[in-house]
């Protein structure tokens, strides 16, 4: 295929042209600093309010509960660090899962250095958190449970409502990293008992470099970035007006197309899964078979390694990933795949394909054909495969 086939929408999405359109006036025309007194700046203030309202509505929350950040990562850092600092006198114990994004895990490591204790809960072979273990981990000094909404590598959706209930029962705060889920799954923070929620625009057709943290009214966490009185004094720094507007627009579009997108993605996903599992031996689908993001598949192809697979697919104009984008510079196999129990050599051979509404059946079929070829080629090169064949 001449055209690039982009199957890495969990890493980042194309910014929708309508979103770019919506942002454009805020660079060189309506460019005032929203904190300023004059009329010219109040247009910006209004634009921010509108975006905030769109997002608040999407969550079933109030606009005064939505705080813009520069990324999903910042929102995660904020939720953890500020909660730790605000509730330190109550206790220094936080519970999370073993399959969180590094934005959570590395912030937890940072907090551990500052004297906090973190319990990392196991997941089952499908990547679903062990609720009994979670509840047992709660101590008098526990202040926060942070469990992601949907996993970025294997797509598994967590039992958020149940976790919310556990948190409520034990009077704990519950934060969820919904970076992969927001705009893709229905989320109502009231119904699900979520106290804090992180999201990021670039996973749903918005620009890279804008996120938000939902903070339920009454939660007394302070700011993470200190300075001016922006975001009601809770998140300092001149507002990124264009991106806030773009985020609002992207959410609006994501919600209005949610059902049809999910339907299309699901069809393509099922087709992809069926063909790959049927046509390529020694392959497993990672993550829950059905309870997963509609646009996510993650395979392990035994005997081969992920990076070479990716490069060979790239040569065929297919953009895919292995593990998460943020760790692709690293040599370690995915902590998520290890957590669901894969042995190292299988964890190394994983391929994540994440679809968008723009993908076609033709692209998927072409992709499966190419995966077959490439997996075959790499297995022929693999000493592990050689050993396996010999032993049979």
């Amino acid at each position: 295929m001449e055209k690039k086939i982009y199957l890495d929408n969990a890493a980042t999405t194309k910014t929708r042209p309508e979103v770019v359109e919506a942002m454009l006036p805020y660079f060189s025309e309506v460019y005032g600093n929203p904190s300023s007194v004059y009329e010219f700046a109040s247009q910006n203030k209004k634009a921010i309010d509108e975006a905030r309202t769109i997002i608040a509505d999407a969550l079933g929350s109030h606009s005064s509960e939505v705080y813009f950040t520069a990324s999903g990562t910042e929102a995660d850092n904020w939720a953890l660090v500020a909660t730790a600092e605000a509730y330190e006198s109550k206790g220094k114990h936080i519970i999370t899962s073993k399959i969180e994004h590094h934005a959570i895990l590395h912030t937890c490591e940072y907090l551990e250095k500052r004297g906090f204790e973190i319990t990392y809960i196991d997941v089952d072979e499908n990547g679903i958190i062990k609720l009994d273990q979670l509840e047992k981990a709660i101590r008098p000094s526990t202040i926060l449970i942070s469990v992601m909404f949907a996993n970025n590598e294997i797509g598994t959706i967590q039992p958020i409502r149940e976790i919310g209930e556990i948190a409520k029962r034990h009077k704990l705060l519950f934060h969820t990293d919904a970076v992969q889920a927001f705009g893709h799954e229905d989320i109502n923070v009231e119904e699900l008992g979520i106290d804090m929620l992180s999201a990021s625009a670039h996973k749903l057709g918005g620009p890279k470099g804008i996120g938000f943290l939902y903070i339920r009214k009454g939660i007394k966490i302070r700011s993470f970035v200190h300075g001016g009185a922006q975001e009601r004094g809770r998140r300092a720094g001149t507002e990124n007006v264009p991106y806030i507007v773009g985020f609002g627009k992207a959410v609006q579009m994501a919600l209005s197309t949610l059902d049809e997108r999910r339907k299309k993605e699901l069809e393509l996903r099922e087709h992809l899964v069926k063909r790959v599992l049927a046509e390529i031996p020694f392959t497993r689908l990672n993550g829950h078979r059905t309870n997963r993001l509609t646009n996510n598949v993650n395979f392990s192809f035994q005997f081969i390694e992920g990076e070479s697979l990716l490069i060979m697919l790239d040569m065929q104009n297919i953009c895919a990933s292995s593990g998460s984008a943020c760790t692709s510079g690293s040599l370690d196999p995915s902590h998520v795949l290890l957590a669901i129990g894969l042995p190292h050599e299988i964890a190394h051979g994983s391929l994540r394909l994440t679809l968008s509404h723009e993908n076609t059946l033709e692209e998927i079929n072409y992709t499966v054909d190419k995966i077959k070829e490439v997996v075959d080629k790499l297995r022929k090169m693999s000493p592990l495969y050689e050993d396996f064949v010999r032993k049979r």
Partner: protein
Amino acid sequence: MYTKKVMDHFSNPRNMGELENPSGVGTVGNAKCGDIMRMYLDIDDDGIIQDVKFKTFGCGAAIATSSVATELVKGKTVQEALEVTNKAVVEALDGLPPVKVHCSLLAEQAIHAALWDYAEKNGIKIEGLKKPKNDVHDHEEDVAESY
């Protein structure tokens, strides 16, 4: 992130495959770290490497270093092959990204392991060759990476 040479060796690996009755075969690395290299050597009575094949489980750099390493030792004497360092491998590829340099060490070690096997099978001692370790990875990280 890779040079043209790396990409060339990766897409068209030289000497990929197995040898039927190799004079020596060596496997290094481990699946935990994501790279395993196996080298087959066919060495004639004059100690000249007549043929060499590799199989590699690993990243693009691992495959490319294996491939280029086979080229570097083919036709050489055992003693010359021993002098093919990981540096030579990196140079032959016009460089590797810092995190991938360990792959070239693996290639060096794979040759050594195959030579060791050859020496053992033939009850000879090769000057300067030490018993290869099972895992030659160094797990140093970029200093700045400390989260």
